[in-house]
């Protein structure tokens, strides 16, 4: 059962600036992204213009403004992964999924994100699908990995 926006907002004190980021984080955990309504409501609650709330939210990498796909692909673009060819991996995933990084497919099944480091440098290059790690991946394996997820829906 999803907690409603009101319930999440009421956990925090009105008008306190320092609870802005935790509040946005809680909303994102619950709904997966920040929509327009959430930004407006948070603005009213914290007593900040919603433009400012939006400005702060876009500053940080964590906040998303589109819904995640059912399968969320994260490709690591850290230094170690880069040296092991993660750029080609990212391009290949983009090609197979027919998505650009940061996008969600129209049917809501897939989304793709490039992250700066997942801290798994020992097993580079790594990719993460819904929390499950794929380590030391080769370009040839990608189509197979993605087809596996395609067939599970």
């Amino acid at each position, binding site marked *: 059962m999803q907690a409603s926006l009101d319930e999440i907002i009421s956990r925090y004190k009105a008008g306190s600036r320092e609870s802005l980021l935790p509040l946005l*984080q809680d909303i994102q955990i619950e709904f997966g992204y920040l929509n327009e309504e959430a930004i407006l409501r948070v603005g009213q609650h914290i007593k900040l213009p919603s433009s400012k709330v939006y400005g702060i939210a876009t500053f940080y990498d*964590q*906040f998303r403004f589109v819904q995640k796909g059912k399968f969320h692909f994260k490709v690591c673009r850290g*230094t*170690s992964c880069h040296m092991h060819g993660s750029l080609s991996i990212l391009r290949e995933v983009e090609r197979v999924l027919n998505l650009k990084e940061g996008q969600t497919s129209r049917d809501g099944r897939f989304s793709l994100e490039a992250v700066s480091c997942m801290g*798994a440098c*020992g097993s580079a290059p790594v990719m993460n699908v819904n929390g499950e790690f794929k380590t030391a991946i080769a370009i040839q394996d990608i189509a197979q990995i993605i087809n596996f997820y395609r067939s599970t829906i």
Partner: protein
Amino acid sequence: MDEKKFLIEKVLAVKADLTQREVIDALALLRHDTVNIPVVYIGSGTCGKVAGANDTFVAVNRYLEEKNIKAEVVQVGCIGLCSYEPLVDIQLPGKARISFKSITHERVETLLDDIFNSEVPTENVLGQFNNKRHNRWNNVPLINELPFFRLQHRVVLANCGVSNPDSISDYIARGGYQTYLKCIRNYTSEKICNIVDQSGLRGRGGGGYLTGEKWMMAHNTVSDQKYLICNAAESDPGAFMDRAVIEGDPHLLLEGIAITAYAIGATKAYIYVMDEYSQAYFMLNQAINQLKDFGFIGYNIFESGVDFKITLVKGPGAFVCGEETALINSIEGKRGMPRPKPPYPAIEGLFGKPTVINNVETLANIPFILRHGPLHFNEIGIPEARGTKVFAISGKAMITGLVEVPMGTSIRDIIFKIAGGVKDGKDFKAVQIGGPSGSCLPASQLDLTVGYESLWSEGAIIGSGGMIVMDEDTCMVDIAKFFMNFLQKESCGKCIPCREGTRRIHEILENITRRPTGESGFEVLERFKGIIQLADLSEVIRDTSLCGLGQTAPNPLLSAMKWFRDEFEEHVFDRKCRAGVCKELRLFYIDVDKCIGCVACLRKCPSNAIVGQPRQPHFIIEEKCIGCGICFDVCKFVAVKLK
């Protein structure tokens, strides 16, 4: 709870007598020095989980259940050997703890079968732990005599991967929190500041400011409220030591925080953890709850009159928030942009109150200093930099993982003696130290020693301690481009030189790694103009940015240009990338002896650069080739080759 009552009354109380036989035995049992039933330890830090430790955990439990064996399974943190994960240690009663590498779930059964029959399998053995109370296994090397561990000096990582991070009792049994209680019972806050000052500890986050001096400044500022912030916003790609400390030994960090807060007179501490570090966040949260349970958090702790509270903050992910004033802004719910200094945070920081911000590694050193005294700490390292430093080694090194060495160790020793050199027998090309705003050092500079000033003299920084090893297959122009791209994306946008300058540098580097097809004369001129101005541009960024990140932003480029000038010139003049990394500069040709004329490449070529008749050898027209490499990938006869 019995365990808790015992620890509080017999170990932590003022009149506790730790020399009693029963106490010694109970503590040995708590820290698994002696065991009554077999114990299986599984390395379950993030690196272990990535390698499949969760499956191993399930497999071990299933095995124990099926065979009806009574044993304890403990999930420990990372011992530092990330490339050998998942690590599994087994300790039978009376026998030394023995460690195995790369135990994926399918290997669990054979391993446990052998071990429970008191046989040591020949494969995957790493070593055994040295313990006087135990019988050693035959023909198994001691773990601290392995080349990887022999040269290390572990202060911060001492218990990572060894002790049980889920249990506060384990930590207390290893002497934990006794130092904290000694401090709040016997020492004035001023005395602690002095001890840390004498120890010569310097900030491990990169700045290298004397920790004791920083504390003293905050301590001497009069205010109704002071704050301590633990900076665990580790967002450099290739740095993961803070995460390992938090996951492997969270109570060490918390004890360090508690002591520091008392020393500067702060009653409130914040820990700022990266949002991506979900496991680290979970571990800290759990550890803080245990502290509350034991009464280390709250009012009048252990009747000493000291109040203390910890708040966990999830950093919403921005590289710049590693800068202390940006971090303060982020906690206050603003954009993470740096503020001008002075006033220093120690005078006017979070919510305008005196605030000390220390890195995880700095704080994790504190319990050691106060337990063993400043002189003992002084013996480690070199005069300019006391103590040890943890490095996260990644890239093309044979062993990737965490290494803790005394300051003053040479970089060559770390890479070749501890990490085993370069993977796959390739040649060493460079090592990148200090994260994205650090610099690349070539083979000729490997004898530099680890420290603050010693690295600064060569334009390098110690940074947070990422060490990325690069082999001959790495293109230095590409690496410089990669870092500039990262810094340009992560620039907060406050200062124009950093915001626009990094973008320009990235564009110029893009230009020189792109094949100049159909380039007009003017564009060629622009390209060369950019290259000529690179050095000037870097200087402007360095001189006119506000925060440390902006000032060091051109470092990766400057160091690459300094040490690998020939490679840059090759890219600019010969339009060639010797490592074959810059894709658009690659030139292919078809080996006429091997080509059978299957037309696979001819059909796939997006720029119609391949000509030929079926069953006749094909040719590539260089002027039309865009270097995409599709022909190289589709050729089944290895006839397409790189020039």
